[in-house]
């Protein structure tokens, strides 16, 4: 069974949108509340490899893409979720994927996305005395 069908079967109800850019690049959109469930199925049950997560800023929202790789098939599945522009916040995934902790810290300081339940959301890349509320990767900042 190929990855696309497996995803449809396992995640079924949570998928709000499924886009296969080509056979090896699949983007699925899920609700913020469902992310944890989906990642758990992908990472633990389907044995996908955690690659990385990327935070993106849009005009009216933030989005996070969790990239997971199925190495046997060479497929990358990106789980996308949209966050509020005013108060970007999502649950931390460290309990499922331990390695994700660093990228969450990075997104926090560069984009200002808050991760609830993260064990230590301290500065990672920037100086400890970096100005609060100055998130360099946001578009309004040009420095």
């Amino acid at each position, binding site marked *: 069974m190929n990855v696309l069908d497996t995803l449809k079967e396992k995640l079924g109800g949570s998928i709000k949108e499924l886009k296969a850019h080509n056979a090896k690049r699949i983007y699925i959109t899920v609700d913020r509340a469902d992310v944890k469930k989906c990642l758990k199925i992908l990472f633990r049950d389907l044995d996908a490899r955690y690659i990385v997560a*990327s935070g993106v800023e849009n005009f009216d929202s933030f989005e996070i893409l969790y990239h997971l790789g199925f*190495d*046997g098939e060479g497929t990358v599945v990106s789980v996308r979720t949209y966050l509020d522009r005013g108060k970007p916040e999502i649950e931390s995934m460290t309990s499922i994927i331990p390695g994700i902790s660093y990228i969450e810290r990075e997104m926090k300081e560069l984009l200002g996305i808050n991760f609830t339940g993260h064990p230590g959301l301290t500065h990672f890349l920037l100086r400890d005395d970096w100005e609060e509320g100055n998130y360099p990767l946001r578009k309004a900042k040009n420095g």
Partner: protein
Amino acid sequence: MAEDKKKKVIVPIGPYHPLLEEPEFFALYCDGEKVVDVDWQAGYNHRAIEKLSEAKHWDQVTFLVERICGICSTSHPFAYCNAVEDLLGASVPERARYIRCIIGELERIHSHLLWVGLAGHFLGYNTVFMWAWKYREPVLDMFEIITGNRNHYAMFKIGGVRRNIEEEDMPALRRVLKGLKVQLEMLTHAVLDDPVLGARLKGVGVLTKEHIKNFGAVGPVARASGIGGDIRKDDPYAAYPMLDFKVITAEHGDVFDKAVVRLLEMFESIKIIEQSLDAIEGKGGDIQTEIRDIPPGEGIGRHEAPRGECFHYIKSDGTNRPVRHKIRAPSYTNIPTFKASCIGQMIPDVAIILAGVDPCYCCTERVAVYDAGNKKKQMYDFSRLVEMSRQKTEKIKKEI
């Protein structure tokens, strides 16, 4: 836990460590000679590349990503071009594909040789350092012949490569490759058959499959633990589907196996380069396709860099620059494995375990030992840690 940590000795390592965008700073929590916990702090080398990339033209970004890391200076443009071509659905001329593979594999050889040299240096085997770096020079010469520079080759371009490999250079390249094979064989045997190195490295810094899975480690680190992931095979790109090569794996996941994997991989790389040269010799052909506009959309590109999978995600809104460019270098997921591999090990082994993951160790490092228990503070530099590592090697030498 915090209470617990207070009683331990803290050994910070770093922060000068220029490996990718993020070099690191480690604090080792020690109980006597034993390491009980590790903390990672990055950012001393963060250069705002993801942000700068949003202000550059699609074409200029290749030069920027090249300068993420000097050792992997093809990997990032390779992955970036793959990402843009994934977005476009564009295909690359055949000759360009082979040239890309040649450059990528040459880089693997030079990077692994560099690692072998530095690992030898940390263990007090300066001869290994001198050998490995001497054999690395012909590889750099090949780069100079092909691209015009020893490092930072500027070969990659969306839709192809910037320079051709000239027919008259081929004999010289083949000659260097032939010489290199003999030298590498000698070096490989010298390293792998040495009883002292075996005793020193076997069973040190073991990573199990479970650790690899949790941290998402890739490349030689994962392959040394028996996980056969290799993007070149799993998600073939460029000319790799047309080439014949093996993915090297080992079983134990210790530093020795990581060395084995890297040493043997170099022979595969030589094989790939020879096949590619055969494939393009005497056949002309385009080396680039013209690409003008990048439509809105997103793309993901991957490349098996010397240290593992290099991952680029780009998002376009149809203008002449990316709106978002996410870069994940392999060490980003390899480094956190220290949390698993260092714990329970002795301080003299830490230098080589850290080196085993291959986060370019060429930079001068400063280590401070803080004895938090009785508020005493001792400063060591990194050479002290290396010194300890060497003393241990000496000891084993005497015992054998």
